[in-house]
C-alpha cells in the first residue's frame, strides 16, 4: 500500500492540532461553521486514531510514543495532552446541552435551503439529525473508553473530578443519542402497485420477469426480515408493521433524517432530558441509514464489550438497536443481491424508490452490503462482485478516470449530492436540504474493507491498488495553505471546473478521511495473506535444503575449519528460522531456503572440480 497510514495520520494530527488550538483556546467551526456534528467530527479527527490504532494511544502518558506526542505538541506534552482533551471534550458536551439538561443533536449550519436567501428559522436549525446521533455515539464511546484507561493513571483529585464529570456527560449523551436512533428508525410500507412499489420491483427485476412474480419472490426473500420486524416494539417503526401481512404490500426499512413524525417516546431509566417530537417523514434515507449503521456498529464492537463501556440501560437500548441493525443490513443486502444472475447492485446507478438515481446511491447500497459481508465472512466470489462494483464506481466517479470538461460526475464531489429533508418545513420556514460530498472517502473506506476481507491475494492486490489511486485523488484534494493546511477539502485541486472552497478545513470531510486511514492502519497491522501455493513451494524447497544440509554434515563438514563451519552455522540458523515462519510468511521461508540452497550449491560445485583432474 502506498498510502502509509501512520505517516498520514501523524500529518493529519499535526494539522488538526495546529488549526484547532490557538493561544490555549480551542477553535470550533471550520468551513461550515460550528454545530453539533461538525464539532464532533473535529474531535473525532483526534479521538478515532487515539482509540482505534494501538500506536496512537494517548490515554497512558507513560506509553505514549515519542513521535505521536510530537505531532500533538501544540496541545502540550504527553502528560498535558490527555488533560487538554478532557477539557475540550467537556466543553463540547456542555456546548451541546440545553439549559434544561437535554443533549442537543441539531444540524444547524449543515442545513441547506433551496434559496440561500431563504434562511431557516431557529426552530428549524434546532432540529435533531441522525448524522449527529451517529457521530455522538462514536464520540461518546471513544471518550468513555479513553477515560476508563486514563482514569487508572490518575492520582490527583482535581483531575479525577474532571474525568468523572466528563464521563457522566458523555454517558448521558450516549443514552440520548441511542434513543434518538431508536426514534428515527422507520419502516415504510407501500402497495406493490404504488409508485414506490413499481420502483422497487423495477430495481429488483433484473431478468425481465412478470412484476407479479417479482413481488411474490421479494416477499418470500424478505420473509425473515418482516417476521423479525414484529419484534420491534420500542421506538418508531412499530406502528407500520401490522400492514406487512397484506400480500400486496412491500416495504423499506432504515433511518429517516431525524426523529420520525409521531415517533413514540422511549421508556428509559435515569435522566436523559426531554424527548422532543419528531417531524421527519417516516421513510428511510439511504445516506442516513448508512451513517446510522456505522455508528451503531460501534455499540457492539469488541472494544465496547471488553472495556464494558455501556451501562445496563444502554445495553438494553443497544440490543434494541442491534435488531434494527441486523434487519436493515439484511434488507438492503437482500435487495442488492436479489437476482443471482445480475445483482440489482450491479445495475449502476441505483434508483431509489422515490425515483432518484445517482452513482452515490449505488455507493451507499454497496456500503451496506459491505457491512453485511463483514459480519458474515463472505466468500471470495461475492467479494469479487462487490469489488467490481467498487471499481466501476471509482471509474464513474471520475476518480480512476479523468473527467470530461462538463462532467456531471463532478457535481457529486462538489457541491455534492443534495436531497430534501421531507417534513423539515413542518415547524414553519423553508424546506431544508442536506448536501453530502463524501463519495471519495466512503469509496476508499469500503474498498479497504473489502480488500481486508478478501482471502484471494490477487483480488486483494487489485483492490489495494485501487485504494492507492483513490488515496492519490484524496491527497490532491488537501488544502494547500491557510488555517486548514494539510486538511481537507479542496476539490478544485483535482477538478479544474470547480471553484476554490476557501482555506478553512471541512471537518466533515477530514473526519471521513481519518476513518479511512484508521481502517487502513488496522489492515496493515494484520498478518499478510498466505498463498497456499507459495506455502507448498516453500515447504518443498525447505525439504530439499534440509536434506542437502544433513548430507553436508554427514560428510564431516561440521568439523571443518572456521570458514566452512561458519557458513554451515548460518545455514542451520536460516533453516530453523524458515521452519518457524513457514506458516505465517511462506515468502520469507522461501527466500531463506533459497539462500541455504545457494550456499550449499557453492560447496557442491567446488567439490565437483576435485575429480576433473585432466
Amino acid at each position, binding site marked *: 500500500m502506498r498510502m502509509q497510514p501512520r505517516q498520514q495520520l501523524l500529518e493529519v494530527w499535526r494539522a488538526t492540532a495546529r488549526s484547532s488550538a490557538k493561544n490555549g483556546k480551542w477553535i470550533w467551526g471550520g468551513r461550515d461553521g460550528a454545530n453539533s456534528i461538525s464539532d464532533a467530527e473535529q474531535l473525532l479527527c483526534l479521538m478515532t486514531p487515539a482509540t482505534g490504532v494501538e500506536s496512537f494511544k494517548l490515554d497512558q502518558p*507513560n*506509553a*505514549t510514543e515519542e513521535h505521536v506526542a510530537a505531532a500533538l505538541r501544540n496541545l502540550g506534552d504527553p502528560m498535558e495532552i490527555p488533560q487538554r482533551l478532557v477539557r475540550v471534550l467537556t466543553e463540547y458536551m456542555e456546548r451541546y446541552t440545553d439549559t434544561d439538561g437535554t443533549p442537543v443533536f441539531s444540524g444547524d449550519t449543515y442545513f441547506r435551503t433551496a434559496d440561500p436567501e431563504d434562511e431557516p428559522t431557529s426552530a428549524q436549525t434546532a432540529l435533531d439529525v441522525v448524522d449527529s446521533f451517529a457521530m455522538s455515539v462514536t464520540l461518546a464511546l471513544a471518550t468513555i473508553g479513553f477515560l476508563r484507561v486514563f482514569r487508572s493513571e*490518575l492520582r*490527583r483529585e482535581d483531575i479525577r473530578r474532571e474525568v468523572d464529570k466528563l464521563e457522566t456527560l458523555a454517558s448521558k449523551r450516549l443514552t440520548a443519542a441511542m434513543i434518538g436512533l431508536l426514534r428515527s428508525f422507520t419502516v415504510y410500507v407501500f402497495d406493490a402497485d404504488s409508485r414506490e412499489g413499481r420502483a422497487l420491483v423495477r430495481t429488483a427485476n433484473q431478468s425481465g420477469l412478470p412484476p407479479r412474480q417479482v413481488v411474490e419472490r421479494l416477499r418470500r426473500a424478505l420473509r425473515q426480515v418482516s417476521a423479525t420486524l414484529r419484534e420491534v416494539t420500542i421506538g418508531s417503526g412499530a406502528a407500520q408493521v401490522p400492514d406487512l401481512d397484506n400480500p400486496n404490500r412491500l416495504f423499506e426499512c432504515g433511518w429517516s433524517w431525524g426523529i420520525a413524525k409521531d415517533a413514540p417516546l422511549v421508556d428509559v431509566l435515569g435522566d436523559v432530558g426531554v424527548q422532543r417530537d419528531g417531524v421527519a417523514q417516516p421513510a428511510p434515507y439511504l445516506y442516513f441509514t448508512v451513517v446510522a449503521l456505522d455508528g451503531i456498529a460501534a455499540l457492539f464492537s469488541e472494544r465496547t464489550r471488553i472495556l464494558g463501556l455501556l451501562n445496563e440501560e444502554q445495553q438494553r437500548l443497544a440490543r434494541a438497536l442491534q435488531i434494527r441493525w441486523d434487519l436493515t443490513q439484511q434488507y438492503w443486502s437482500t435487495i442488492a443481491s436479489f437476482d443471482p444472475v445480475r445483482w440489482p447492485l450491479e445495475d449502476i446507478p441505483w434508483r431509489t424508490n422515490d425515483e432518484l438515481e445517482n452513482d452515490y446511491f449505488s455507493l451507499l447500497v454497496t456500503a451496506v452490503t459491505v457491512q453485511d459481508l463483514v459480519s458474515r465472512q463472505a466468500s471470495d466470489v461475492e467479494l469479487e462482485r462487490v469489488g467490481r462494483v467498487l471499481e466501476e464506481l471509482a471509474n464513474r466517479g471520475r476518480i480512476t478516470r479523468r473527467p470530461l470538461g462538463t462532467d456531471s460526475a463532478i457535481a457529486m464531489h462538489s457541491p455534492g449530492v443534495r436531497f430534501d429533508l421531507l417534513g423539515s418545513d413542518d415547524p414553519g420556514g423553508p424546506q431544508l436540504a442536506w448536501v453530502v460530498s463524501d463519495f471519495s472517502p466512503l469509496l476508499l473506506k469500503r474498498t479497504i474493507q473489502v480488500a481486508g476481507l478478501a482471502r484471494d491475494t490477487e483480488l486483494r492486490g487489485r483492490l489495494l491498488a485501487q485504494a492507492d489511486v483513490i488515496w492519490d485523488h484524496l491527497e490532491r484534494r488537501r488544502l494547500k495553505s491557510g488555517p486548514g493546511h494539510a486538511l481537507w477539502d479542496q476539490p478544485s485541486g483535482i477538478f479544474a471546473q470547480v471553484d476554490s472552497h476557501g482555506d478553512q478545513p471541512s471537518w466533515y470531510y477530514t473526519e471521513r478521511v481519518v476513518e479511512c486511514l484508521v481502517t487502513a492502519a488496522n489492515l496493515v497491522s494484520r498478518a499478510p495473506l498466505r498463498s497456499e501455493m507459495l506455502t507448498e513451494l516453500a515447504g518443498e524447497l525447505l525439504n530439499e535444503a534440509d536434506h542437502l544440509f544433513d548430507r553436508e554434515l554427514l560428510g564431516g563438514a561440521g568439523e571443518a575449519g572456521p570458514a566452512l563451519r561458519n557458513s554451515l552455522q548460518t545455514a542451520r540458523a536460516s533453516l530453523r528460522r524458515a521452519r518457524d515462519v513457514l506458516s505465517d510468511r511462506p515468502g520469507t521461508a522461501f527466500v531463506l531456503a533459497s539462500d541455504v540452497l545457494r550456499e550449499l550449491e557453492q560447496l557442491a560445485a567446488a567439490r565437483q572440480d576435485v575429480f576433473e583432474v585432466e
Partner: protein
Amino acid sequence: MLVFATSDKGGTGRSVTSSNVAYRRSLQGSDVCYLDFDFGSPTAGTIFNVDSASRGTTEGGLHSYLQGRISEPQMLDVWTQSDRPSLRHRPPGAGRLVLLPGDSGGGEFAVNHEVVQRCIRLMRRLDEEFDLCLLDLSAGRSYATEMVLAATAEPEMRAVTARWLVFHRWTRQHIIAASGLVYGERGIIEAGRVWGHNQQELMDSIRFVRTAVVDPNSVELAGLRPSQVAWLRDCNRDLQELASQRKVGRTTMLGVIPLDPVLQWREQLISDNDVYARQIANRETVDAFDSLAKRLTEDAAWETL
C-alpha cells in the same frame, strides 16, 4: 531548596550529571552549593577541577563537621578555586557556585541523633544562604540516605522544600534497580515512612533522571546496521513498557541526559567552550543539563497526574 541526588547502582553518572546541573543552574543566575555526601568516596573535587579537594579536603570537610570535630565545614568557591581556566572567573550574571567537599580519607560512618541534628543545622543554614543546595548521596541504600531522610522528617525542616532525583541508566537492570531503590522493600519511601514522612508527599517529591541515553532514532547511529537499529527500537519500546510498569515512566521522569562522548571518557563539567569553541561535547547534552536545572524548581514539572 534542597535536592538529593541518588541512584541504586554505581556508574550511572549521578555525580557528573548533578555537578553539571549545579554548574548550569549557577550560570542561569542562582546561588548554588554542591555537597559531597558520597562519604565512602569523596571525590567531587575532581569534577569541578578543584585540586585541593580532588580526593576530599584536608582542612575539615563534611565528615569532620557531621561527626562533630569542627563547627563549620570547608566551603570552596569554584569560580576562584578551580584549576580549569574556563571555570575560573565567574561569568557576568552567574550566581555563586560553592563546593562542600568530604574529608580526605574519610569513609562511611554510622548515624546517630547528634549527627542528624548537625545535618539539620547545616541544611537550614545553607538553604537560607543559597537558592539551591544539591546533595550528592552515594549509590544504593546508604547511611547518608538514612541521615537526610531522618533530618527532613523533623518538624523544623518542614518549611524547607526537599526534592529527590534518582539517576539511572536506560537499561533493564538499571530501571528495575532504580524502581527498587524508591518503591522496594527498605526503599526510600518505606524508609521515609519509618522516619515519619508522609508517604504520598515523599513520593511526589521524587523524580527519575535517565542518563547516558541513546536515542535509537538519532543520526549518530547512522553507522549501525539496519538490523541493529530495528533491534534497538524494539528494545527501547520494551524498556518504556518496563519503566511504565515499575513507575519509572514518563510521568515520574524529570529529564533525559543523552550519551555524550566527553562524559564517557572523563567526568567533568561541560562548559560552553567545550561545545561551541572546541566542539568536543554535544549541544544536546548541555541543553539537557540546562533544562533539568530549570525544571528542578519549576512547580509545573513536579505536578503529578
